[in-house]
């Protein structure tokens, strides 16, 4: 079966800072949940920008169900690393934005979801009236409610406390399972990656290459009891070890 999205030997460099992606190959199958882990500044967000069509890769190709989409936008729903809410729109209208782009809006659905992520009462607030974590949640459901079948999430829960984060993970998995989306997920949290993913891709420091891939053979649905499971801890140690090893870490 053709992968939903496939990157083949992607390279990219910025004029001012040089080579960032050094031959990245990875794929996400239909309905698969793949996480990317890698050191800060390695090039994870740059990979997303390449898939999203914002950057045209210097070398290599990107395929969507076998069709080459280098530099083509509009195929993904996206949650950027910075919330990137429009300051002149209320929370409600910011979430509606992604739906507007896709051409069909559903306000009551948005209101329901705002309530689910703990933001009822803030529908008409402006972004500057929100806390950091609240902005992140708005950006999260904005991506969640976009209709595209591929979702790119760039550290979506980094500003959330453990409980809120856990709620969000739950909603994400619910949507993912219900709508059979393909998800590519950037995180620094190994437990989170293990808890959510089918597969984990490990990147080297800049310039980024894929240094290892892990299958996560845990059954779904997964619950928090998993966190104490032996195979979970084993995998965690394994990834941690691989990271440490792959790390000719730039800060040393």
């Amino acid at each position, binding site marked *: 079966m053709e992968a939903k999205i496939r990157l083949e030997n992607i390279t990219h460099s910025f004029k001012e800072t040089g080579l960032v992606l050094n031959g990245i190959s990875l794929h996400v199958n239909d309905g698969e949940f793949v996480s990317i882990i890698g050191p800060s500044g390695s090039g994870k967000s740059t990979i997303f920008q390449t898939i*999203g*069509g914002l950057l045209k890769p210097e070398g290599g190709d990107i395929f969507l169900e076998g069709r080459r989409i280098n530099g083509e936008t*509009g195929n993904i*729903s*996206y949650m950027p690393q910075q919330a*990137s809410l*429009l300051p002149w729109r209320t929370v409600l209208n910011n979430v509606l934005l992604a739906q507007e*782009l896709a051409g069909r809006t559903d306000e009551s659905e948005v209101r329901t979801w705002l309530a689910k992520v703990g933001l009822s009462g803030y529908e008409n607030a402006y972004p*500057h009236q929100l806390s950091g974590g609240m902005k992140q949640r708005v950006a999260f459901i904005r991506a969640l409610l976009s209709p595209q079948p591929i979702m790119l999430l760039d550290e979506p829960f980094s500003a959330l406390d453990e409980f809120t984060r856990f709620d969000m993970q739950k909603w994400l998995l619910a949507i993912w399972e219900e709508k059979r989306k393909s998800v590519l997920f950037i995180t620094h949290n190994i437990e989170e990656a293990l808890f959510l993913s089918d597969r984990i891709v490990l990147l080297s420091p800049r310039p980024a290459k894929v240094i290892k891939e892990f299958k996560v053979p845990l059954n779904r649905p997964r619950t928090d009891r998993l966190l104490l499971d032996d195979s979970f801890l084993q995998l965690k140690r394994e990834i941690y070890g691989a990271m440490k090893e792959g790390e000719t870490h730039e800060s040393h």
Partner: protein
Amino acid sequence: MKRFGNIGWSPIAVLLLFFMVWEGLASLFEIPAWLLPAPTAIFKEAFTNYQLFLPDVGSTVMLAASGLLLGASIGFIIATVLHLVPPLRMALYPFLIISQNVPIIVLAPLLVIWFGFGYLPKLIIITLVCFFPITIALLDGFRNAPRELVHYMKMSGATSFQLFSKVQFPNALPPLFSGLKISATYSVMGAVISEWLGAEKGIGVFMTLSSSAFRTDRVFIAIFIIVILSMLLYSLITLLEKTVIKWAREGDQ
């Protein structure tokens, strides 16, 4: 909000002071009235002979307001087109400059010959005056949209037009209002100048007639009216700005 109650009066106080100083200087140095009449003389003349210029005011207001509106619309359209079609921008910018640099004494006869003595040539002049600051301010405002918002929009598949209408345009609202303030300030003077294109009435007519008749006090009445109208338009724009831009202003707390 409380600030307003207090500071709203300060421009009036300063204006009063300004008039008092002017009055004082006028009588101290015995400045002749034909050069710079004292404010009291001007006000007296204004109150006793208001029927002389009242009809003029209405006509000029109409001209200035419709010119500003038209100028703003055209300024907006030009900026939008030049922004959305970048090659046009480079190609047409000389004409933007030209539009501001053809002197009235050359333009006026041409306009009258082409469009007669009616409303249209006057409107064209005010429009020429008003559109330019708005176009320039908007063009720069469109370009300066925050990078991360533009990136988000592109990644999410926004078309150029969606990017424009949902990000670049709202982002250009603050500069738009700066441009509008500049244009509003010019619009009344633009109307006055356009009236020199042969008008029946209007503050411009009143002013030239008074000036040629050496009635400096009446010329100053005309100026006062022009200034007051400009301030009204400016305040209107500021008010509009406050209702439209609710999200971004620091120091409103």
